[in-house]
């Protein structure tokens, strides 16, 4: 079998006496859409933070494209092809929407020690940025200050930033949280289109979306990986139904 794109090996993390990640071992294959579900407080976001490098695990290791990246800072992981969105949208509020994305393009191009020339007028940055905005469906808001966007639009902007990085692995932390029915449908359509082109880990409470999108699903309960399997397997797993899905499906 081919080497997985991402491998989590025995990850552990405690916040004081609270165990938030309990010996998590998981392989994510290239091209896979992997959903991570579980009740609130199960440690899903903490796990995403350990993958993206914002939190260091107490024990265990993270391998990305065959390399141990456990000790690498988030910026290095980003440059190696990992991008993410946040549960609470993380954008540059004072920047124009297009500038938010153009900055991600700039990071990828790696030529930021230029002291002259108006960055805002550079087609080399703006054209890929606009393409990402169009993919995320908010190109019409390109010139607006990011702070003026609605909640749903901010989520779309974050996704555009992530896409502009042309990642190998995209981490999505509750992208549907707090957005409307229509926007959720549009987002599901977009993610379906992206499926196969890049590897994704999706943390989400919207079970309709999860079962529509995921190739495999992992269930996290109190920091521990309960099971990993296909949507059908997970749906039929009595343990999962008892611990989590029961309340979600009602």
């Amino acid at each position, binding site marked *: 079998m081919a080497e997985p794109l991402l491998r989590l090996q025995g990850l552990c993390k405690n916040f004081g006496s609270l165990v938030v990640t309990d010996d998590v071992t998981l392989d994510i294959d290239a091209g896979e859409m992997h959903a991570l579900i579980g009740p609130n407080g199960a440690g899903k976001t903490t796990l995403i933070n350990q993958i993206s490098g*914002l939190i260091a695990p107490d024990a265990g290791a993270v391998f990305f494209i065959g390399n141990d990246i456990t000790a690498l800072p988030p910026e290095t992981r980003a440059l190696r092809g990992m991008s*993410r969105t946040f549960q609470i949208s993380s954008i540059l509020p004072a920047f124009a*929407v297009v500038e938010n994305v153009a900055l991600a393009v700039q990071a990828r191009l790696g*030529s930021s020690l230029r002291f*002259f*020339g108006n*960055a805002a007028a550079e087609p080399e940055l703006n054209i890929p940025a*606009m393409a990402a905005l*169009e993919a995320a469906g908010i190109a019409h808001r390109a010139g607006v200050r990011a702070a003026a966007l609605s909640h749903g639009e901010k989520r779309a902007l974050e996704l555009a930033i992530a896409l502009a990085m042309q990642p190998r692995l995209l981490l999505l932390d509750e992208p549907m949280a707090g957005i409307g029915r229509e926007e959720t449908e549009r987002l599901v359509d977009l993610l379906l289109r992206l499926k196969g082109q890049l590897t994704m880990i999706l943390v989400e409470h919207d079970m309709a979306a999860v079962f529509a999108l995921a190739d495999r699903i992992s269930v996290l309960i109190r920091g521990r990986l309960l099971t990993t399997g296909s949507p059908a397997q997970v749906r039929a797993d009595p343990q999962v139904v008892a611990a989590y899905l029961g309340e979600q499906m009602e």
Partner: protein
Amino acid sequence: MATALAAEAAKPALPAARRLILPAAIFLVLALLPVAAAFSGQQYLIDLATRVMVYAVAAVALDVLVGYGGLISFGHAAFIGLGAYAVGILSAHGISDALLALPVAIAASMLFAWLTGIVCLRTKGVYFIMITLAFGQMIFFVATSLAPYGGDNGLTVAARNTVAGLPLLKNDRAFYYVTLLCLLATYLFCRALVASRFGRVLRGGKENATRMATIGFTVRRFQLVAYIIAGGLGGLSGFLLANSTEFVSPAYMSWQQSGELIVMVILGGLGTLHGAILGTAAYLVIEEWLSGVTENWQVIFGPLLVLVVLFARGGLVGLGTTLRRGFFGGIGNG
């Protein structure tokens, strides 16, 4: 489609011409001031305006750090002092040509900025303020203990620097225009800097450090480069200061001086660059005027600053907007 939209998006909020009015007016006034002074016979105007421009060089550079980088450096006067001492010490050893003194002044400041910046930028927020203050005080006390160079009392610079052996800076009006050119160059350089790719990363770091890290920027490196550049410009300011006063003193790098620079930048309007020039002018002119009225001029100046911070958040540059909002939108909405 994407290209058209990108061009649309690249349009600034204000037409470029309108944004140029205020900076152009400032430099026009500065350029014509010696003429007015000559007609009215008020020589002190030239001295005051020279002082304003000398400090404005440092203030504009500080605005890059504070207004664009979110780095509240409370030790910026250290760079002015280093630049000034470079001129003073070289002069004490008989080296008084600007072709050597100026590069030494700038290089010494940049070196100090590099060495201290590596340490300072490991901290954030209040700790950054404290550690820059600490390094500023450190170099202040070094200066006061430099017995061969006047210690506490400072040292007199024998004469203004020559340029390639020519006494180009000797004449006050000539020196005025050299200072004006330095300020203009500083302003244009910083203006280009903040709009460049580099400046965009610097501004992004102020906005959201986590986001910058997760798109792949090690913001601290860019902040260090900005800190070194601002330090070098502080050195330029110090070079000009030592030449204009023909005197060098540890007081140039006191923490009060660093505080005054921050006040100047805030007074003018953070994150505008030309606001820093206006703020410096306002600060020094008000100081000059009030100290003529009363010995305890700070008693009046203090409340004035409080009013600016409370009611004119955008500083002098934002005053127009503030007033419009005040009249038409009610002060509570401002």
